């Protein structure tokens, strides 16, 4: 079974004025679609059987055990599909979801960072400092503590053996230029600051609960 592009949970203009409709449209229908098409090409290709039966999340965690010739395409396109499929669910139309942490994820953030503001300061710094293309993440580590990291290109913290610090991401921000260029040009810090207006903390809370139970972030990965 091949992967299909998941539908966006909201209209393309739902995140205005923080993320513009044109960017959301191109980001979803072109960039994310390309990652889906390309991971499917790997599935259909010579070593595709190595991925057979693996969920998208399991693929992220098993990169080093894959045949060497498909590792880079899987990191790039399998990572790209995972990251974007998760990303859309982390955002919501302002007013339609909790825009600040609550419940157990709030308590965890306060415990591990001191406060939501302190967590945001660290996250913003990681997102701004990632040179070139990549993502910033809030993840649950193997020690059960939350940590912030950034990854290059389409890597993510699930990729043990690939990234410096592995863990289970519960919140992420795309800092590839295509994610913000049309509206923000090179003003990445402005885009990062705007992101907090659209974060769907109800979903992040679900991801946190799932991660502490030993699973990964919760989102659909439809098949074709």
């Amino acid at each position: 079974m091949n992967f299909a592009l998941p539908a966006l949970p909201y209209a393309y203009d739902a995140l205005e004025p923080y993320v513009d409709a044109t960017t959301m449209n191109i980001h979803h229908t072109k960039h994310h679609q390309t990652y889906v098409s390309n991971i499917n090409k790997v599935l259909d290709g010579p070593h595709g059987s190595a991925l057979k039966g693996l969920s998208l999340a399991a693929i992220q965690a098993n990169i080093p055990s894959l045949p060497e010739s498909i590792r880079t395409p899987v990191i790039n396109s399998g990572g790209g599909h995972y990251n974007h499929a998760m990303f859309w669910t982390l955002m919501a139309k302002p007013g339609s979801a909790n825009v600040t942490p609550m419940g157990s994820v709030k308590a965890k953030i306060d415990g591990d960072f001191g406060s939501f503001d302190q967590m945001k300061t660290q996250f913003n710094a990681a997102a701004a400092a990632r040179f070139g293309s990549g993502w910033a993440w809030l993840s649950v580590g193997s020690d059960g503590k939350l940590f912030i990291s950034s990854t290059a290109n389409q890597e993510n913290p699930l990729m043990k053996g690939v990234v410096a610090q592995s863990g289970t991401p519960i919140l992420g921000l795309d800092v590839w230029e295509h994610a913000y260029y049309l509206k923000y040009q090179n003003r990445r810090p402005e885009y990062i600051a705007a992101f907090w207006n659209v974060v769907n903390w109800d979903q992040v809370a679900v991801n946190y609960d799932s991660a502490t139970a030993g699973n990964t972030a919760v989102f659909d990965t439809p098949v074709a």
Partner: protein
Amino acid sequence: MRAHHDAHFASYVSKLNAALPALPAPPVRDDHALKRLLRRLPHVQPPALRAQIRNNGGGYLNHKHFFSCMTPGGAPLPPQSALAQRIHSQFGSFHTFETLFLDAARTLFGSGFVWLVRDAQQLRIVQYANQDNPALHGTVPVLACDCWEHAWYYQYGPNKAAYFAEWWKLIDWPAVCRYYEGKA
């Protein structure tokens, strides 16, 4: 072009200027000194400064080279030039070279530049990530293609193949020849 030059390029220049005073003497005052610095980057002190020099020194040199390889309407490659002859002997034909170069540009993943470099006596088409400059690798830059999304996103959206094809027509080949011959 305006955002690329006035915002991105300018930002690399100012960040590089902010980082250089923290280096021990002698001061880096020109592009040659900067390239020598990049060549010995693993030995630059303090270590905390290396990423800043690599990224902003590279960003400055790369954009300077990139902009200097273009001219309105482009300018053709003189057939008798040393570069034309080298391309023919190494790649078989200009068309083959063009195909290989544009394939490298299209397939570069993430941010980076595609370069034609001189490496000893050979021409090589290379992809360097982010703002890594050929000086880091001891290769001589000949032609630079900025493949970062900011170089084309505004006009071409996700259609980078169209950008690369149009960019190819803007190349100032006599300028590229001067880089190949070590005259620039």
